[in-house]
């Protein structure tokens, strides 16, 4: 059977090629296909922008400025550095908060994931803290600790910690039992066991947790600045809305959205990098 299969293979291939060829001529060349694909993916964005532009061009409503004026003020403040300094401040807070959250979440998750009893005991407490609306913490933390940078970072860290923690626990629980036993049989020291066995195995889950935490962090970042701040993107939005600079308010809100989108794209790139061995293995 194998023999017939082997012998007929080249014949089949030529037949297939012969059948494909006329079709291949009809299908457009590779660059054209890419252009078509890009067009298919982007036309709607262009249409949305065009509709928005045209619909608001003649707007007389003070609160709905024309898209043109929004973009003009956006580019003006982008080029004169007003936004850049605010964005640097906000994103710095976000990065610091996320780093703390990731560190605490991973360490806590590794410990809780490895000790069943402890995990079961603190489970309700964790789920309660996770359920506290992050935005509701903002007035309390800022009220107690002031409008400085530290309280904002802590709030972001607190809000982002839970998804990382819970996902790390899930990841640790998902470590292949055989691998676990191996590590035990060979008496791998505890530190090495955590670093070289459990952590890599849990990494895909941990990264997924950070992916969930990222938008939460961005939201808390903006909310903490919208509530009370003297710097940052949220402050830019708040300040311009308080001084009735309507196009700037719109521009700030849009910019935060774009930043959120870019960060999520960057994170996907980072994820591909960190987990390249995982994706390569074809695991799902």
């Amino acid at each position, binding site marked *: 059977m194998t023999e017939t299969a082997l012998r007929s293979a080249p014949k089949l291939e030529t037949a297939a090629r012969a059948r494909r060829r006329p079709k291949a001529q009809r299908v457009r060349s590779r660059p054209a296909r890419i252009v078509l694909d890009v067009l298919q*993916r982007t036309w709607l964005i262009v249409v949305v922008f065009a509709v928005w532009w045209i619909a608001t061009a003649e707007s007389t409503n003070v609160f709905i400025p024309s898209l043109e004026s929004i973009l003009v003020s956006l580019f003006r403040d982008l080029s004169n550095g007003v936004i850049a300094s605010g964005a640097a401040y906000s994103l710095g807070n976000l990065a610091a908060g996320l780093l703390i959250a990731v560190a605490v979440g991973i360490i806590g998750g590794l410990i809780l994931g490895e000790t069943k009893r402890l995990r079961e*005991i603190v489970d309700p407490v964790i*789920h309660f803290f996770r359920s506290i*609306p992050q*935005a509701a913490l903002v007035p309390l933390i800022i009220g107690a600790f002031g409008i400085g940078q530290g309280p904002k970072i802590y709030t972001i860290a607190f809000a982002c910690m839970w998804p990382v923690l819970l996902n790390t626990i899930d990841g640790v629980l998902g470590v292949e039992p055989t691998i676990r036993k191996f590590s035990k049989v060979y008496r791998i020291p505890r530190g090495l066991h955590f670093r070289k066995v459990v952590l890599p195995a849990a990494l895909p889950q941990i990264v997924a947790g950070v992916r969930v935490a990222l*938008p939460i962090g961005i*939201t808390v970042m*903006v909310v903490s600045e919208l509530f009370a701040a003297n710097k940052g993107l949220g402050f830019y939005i708040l300040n311009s809305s308080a001084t009735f600079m309507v196009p700037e308010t719109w521009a*700030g809100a849009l910019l935060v959205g774009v930043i959120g989108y870019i960060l999520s794209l960057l994170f996907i790139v980072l994820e591909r990098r960190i987990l390249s061995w995982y994706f390569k293995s074809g695991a799902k």
Partner: protein
Amino acid sequence: MKTSTKSLDWGLTTQRLLAVAALLAIWQVVIWSGTLPSMTPGVAALASSIGAALTSATFWSALAQTMTAAVSGWLIAVAAGTVLGLLIGSVRALDRSTSILIDFGRSFPVLALMPVVIMLLGATAKMETVVVALSCLWPVLVQTIYGARRMDSAVVDTVRIFQIPALLRFRRVLLPSATPFIATGIRISASIAILVAVGVEVLSQTPGIGRQITLAQQDQRWDSAFAYLFFAGLVGWSIASLLNFAEGRILKWNRQTND
């Protein structure tokens, strides 16, 4: 993490209670030690203001306002998200065309739009509902698209070969296969609904639990601010547990959802 459903494990329950007691004790010690700002309430003050909130009309009306806005926004999002998602997910061209827009929308921190939405609609319950709906739409939409898109090629072929009419295909093939994903989206968005509703109230003059937290904090009534925070967490936690339970029940036939 799944809590074990063996309902009467007294040892575990006691240990859990002990853990909570230990946390409260640490809290109290930290306050006595004076490392926290002086306005942070002690455990006794906190307990009494939680009790006081339960008997006050303000609390119940605030809770009702928050829940109304959260639930109505959530329902709108679920309806719109499911319909749009099924449509987008089952039409390949639509799926491709909308992908960037949807990726953009889901990563948009909707609360950043608050000042803009307040300008347009004012600090009203309607505004809150709109913001909640806008935030809840994305998880439902993305999950539904995912569910509708992901169909076994064998199933697709079978449907085509037997020339199953479109409506029947939708009702008996597409919907059941997408339901687990939709359910997950609905569950995720329910938690988001509470979070966003409270967030809107914290940031604006819209009445509700979040507003009460801000007001209490501004009046330096820290114990009641913490009490409201506690209730906000409690509501979020109950809703999450309830929906988790419901999803497990309704989708018992589907083993894949239990990761």
